[in-house]
C-alpha cells in the first residue's frame, strides 16, 4: 500500500543531505516563522479561533504521521480525539484536576485506546484497515452516547478552566493561549522529530515496500502499532486541549464526520508533507467558522473539496508548493 506523494521521489537528493546534517535549514526557518506567526496571531484574530486552529493542526499532524508516513489510512481518529476530550473535560469538571493533569489523563486514555484499537486494526490492510478503524470508532461513539459520565446528547458542558499547576489562572483567553501554543507547537515539533528519526525512516521503508521491509528483518507489525499509538496519543492530546479551550466535550468530537474532517485537512494540505496538515487544518477551520451560517452547504463544500482533491491535486497545497521549490516541505 503506497500513498506516495511525488515529492518523495522528486526530492531524494535533498532528503539525503537532510539526513546527513540533521534538520534541513529551510525547515528550521519555516518552523521559526510559524512560531513567530503564532505569537502575534492572537492580536490578529480572535484568540479562541486561533486556539481552535492550533488544536486541529496538531490533530491533523498526528493523523498525517499515520497516513503520510506510515501509509495507514485510519478512518476512526475521532475516537482518540473525542475520548481524550471527554476524559479531560470530566477530569477538570468532576475530579477538579488542574489543566495539565486533565489534559494528560485525556491523552493517556487516548494512548491506551490507541494500543487496543491499533493492535486489532493492523491485522487487516489497506481499505479493510480503514473500515475496521471506522467501525471501532463507531463503537466508541455509541459508548459516548450511552455512558453516564459523557452526558449523552448534551456532552460535558461548562468545563471549568482551573489554575495551571494550581497557580496560574487560565480564566483569561490570552493566558490559555500561551499554554495551547506550547502544547500544540511542542507536539508538532515532536511529531516532526519522529518522522526524521531512524524510526521514521523505517516507517517510510515499510510504506514503500512492506514485503521488502519484512525480508530485511524488521518487525513490521510492531512498527505499525507503534506509529498508530503515537498518532492516537497526539490526536488525544489535541482533543484534550480542545476541550479546555471550548470548555466543552460533545458527541461532535467523537462522531465519524470528525474522522472524515481530519482526513480532509490532511488531503487538502498535502499528505506526507510536514506543513501540509497545518495549512489544511487552518483552511478547513477558517472555512467552517466563516461559512457556519450556510448550514449543510458546508458539508457540500467539504465534499466538493474532497472530490476535487482526489481527482485533481492529490499532492495537496503544500505538496504542490514542495514540487515547485523542489524541497520537501
Amino acid at each position, binding site marked *: *500500500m*503506497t*500513498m506516495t506523494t511525488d515529492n518523495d521521489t522528486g526530492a531524494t537528493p535533498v532528503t539525503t543531505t537532510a539526513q546527513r546534517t540533521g534538520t534541513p535549514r529551510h525547515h528550521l526557518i519555516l518552523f521559526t516563522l510559524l512560531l513567530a506567526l503564532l505569537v502575534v496571531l492572537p492580536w490578529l484574530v480572535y484568540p479562541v479561533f486561533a486556539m481552535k486552529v492550533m488544536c486541529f493542526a496538531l490533530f491533523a499532524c498526528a493523523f498525517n504521521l499515520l497516513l503520510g508516513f506510515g501509509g495507514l*489510512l485510519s*478512518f476512526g481518529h475521532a475516537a482518540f480525539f473525542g475520548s481524550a476530550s471527554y476524559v479531560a473535560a470530566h477530569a477538570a469538571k468532576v475530579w477538579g484536576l488542574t489543566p495539565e493533569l486533565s489534559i494528560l489523563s485525556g491523552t493517556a486514555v487516548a494512548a491506551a485506546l490507541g494500543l487496543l484499537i491499533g493492535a*486489532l*486494526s493492523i*491485522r*487487516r*490492510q*489497506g*481499505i*479493510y484497515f*480503514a*473500515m*475496521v478503524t*471506522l*467501525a*471501532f470508532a*463507531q*463503537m466508541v461513539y*455509541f*459508548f459516548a*452516547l*450511552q455512558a453516564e459520565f459523557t452526558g449523552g446528547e448534551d456532552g460535558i458542558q461548562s468545563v471549568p478552566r482551573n489554575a495551571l499547576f494550581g497557580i496560574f489562572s487560565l480564566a483569561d483567553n490570552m493566558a490559555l493561549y500561551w499554554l495551547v501554543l506550547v502544547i500544540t507547537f511542542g507536539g508538532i515539533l515532536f511529531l516532526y522529530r519522529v518522522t526524521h528519526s531512524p524510526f521514521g525512516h523505517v516507517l517510510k521503508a515499510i510504506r514503500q515496500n512492506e514485503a521488502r521491509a519484512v525480508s530485511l528483518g524488521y518487525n513490521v507489525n510492531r512498527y505499525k502499532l507503534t506509529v498508530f499509538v503515537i498518532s492516537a496519543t497526539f490526536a488525544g492530546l489535541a482533543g484534550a486541549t480542545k476541550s479546555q479551550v471550548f470548555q466543552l466535550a460533545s458527541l461532535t468530537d467523537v462522531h*465519524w464526520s470528525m474522522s*472524515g474532517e481530519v*482526513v480532509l485537512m490532511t*488531503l487538502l494540505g498535502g499528505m506526507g508533507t510536514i506543513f501540509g496538515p497545518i495549512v489544511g487544518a487552518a483552511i478547513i477551520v477558517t472555512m467552517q467558522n466563516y461559512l457556519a451560517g450556510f*448550514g*449543510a*452547504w*458546508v*458539508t*457540500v463544500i*467539504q*465534499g*466538493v*473539496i*474532497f*472530490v476535487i*482533491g*482526489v*481527482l485533481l491535486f*492529490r499532492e495537496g497545497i503544500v505538496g504542490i508548493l514542495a514540487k515547485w521549490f523542489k524541497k520537501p516541505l
Partner: protein
Amino acid sequence: MDIFGIPVQVLFGQLLIGLINGSFYAVLSLGLAVIFGLLNIINFTHGAQYMMGAFVAWMMLNYLGVNYWFALVLAPLVVGAFGMLAERLMLARLYKLDHLYGLLLTFGLALIIQGLFRNYYGISGLPYTIPPALSGGQNLGFMFLPNYRAWVIVVSVVVCFGTWFMIEKTKLGAYLRAATENPELVGAFGINVPRMVTLTYGFGAALAGLAGVLAAPIYSVNPNMGADLIILVFAVVVIGGMGSIIGAILTGFGLGIIEGLTRVVYPEGSSVVIFVIMAIVLLVKPEGLFGRQA
C-alpha cells in the same frame, strides 16, 4: 408462554426486527461486495445511494404520483444511472492509483449528496405510507406479522439469491469473475471490460437504491438514514470477509438476527454487538468468516 423467562411475543417480535434489519444489511453488503469484487473500491457512497433510493421513491409518489410498485423498479434504475455517471466521470480516473483514493472520492461524494438532501429536506424525516396491497398483517397465533415486513424479507432473499446465482452460475458471472482476476486477458478476448465495470458499479448502486425503496415505508425517509447504517454494513463486511458473495448474504442476515436477540437480552448492547463481534472475528480469523486469505 415464556422462553428463558422472556415472553414469546417479545422474543419473536425482536427476531422479526432483526430479520428485517438483516435483510437490509445483506442487500447493502451484497452491493458493496459486487462493487468491491470488480472495482476494488469500498463504495463509501453506498449509504447515500440507499438514501437516494428512498428519496427518489418518495419524490415519485409526492411530485409525480408514481406509486410504490413502479418506484420499486424505477428508483433503483435512477440510482443505478446516477452511479454509472459517477463511475464514468470520476471513479474511472482512479483505478491505476492506490485503492484508498477510491474510498476518499466516494466519501466526498457521500458528503455532497447527503448535504444537498439535508439542505432541501431538512433532517426531520418524511413519511412514506405502506402500499395498500401490503398493509395489514397475519396473526400467526404466537405473534402478529405485518405483511409489509414479510414482503421485505421475501424480496431481499430473492434479490440476494438472484445476484448470487447470476455471479456464480451464469456465463455473465463467469466473465465478471474472470475480469476481477485478470482484466487485460479478459479484454483481449474482446470483452469490453470498462463497460462491464461501469455496469457493475451501476448494478451495485441500484441494489443500494432498491434497499432504500424497501426501507422507505418502514423507517422515515431522511437524509441521514444511510450515513450511520453504512458504517454498520462495513462492520458486517469485515466480519463476513469480502471474498465471497454468499458470505455477504449470510453474515448480513445472521448479524441482523443476533442484533435483534441482543435487544431482548441486553438492550444497551444492541448498538455495539456487531462491532464487538467484529473485534472477536479480527482476533480469531482476520480475513473474515467467509473471506479468502489476505
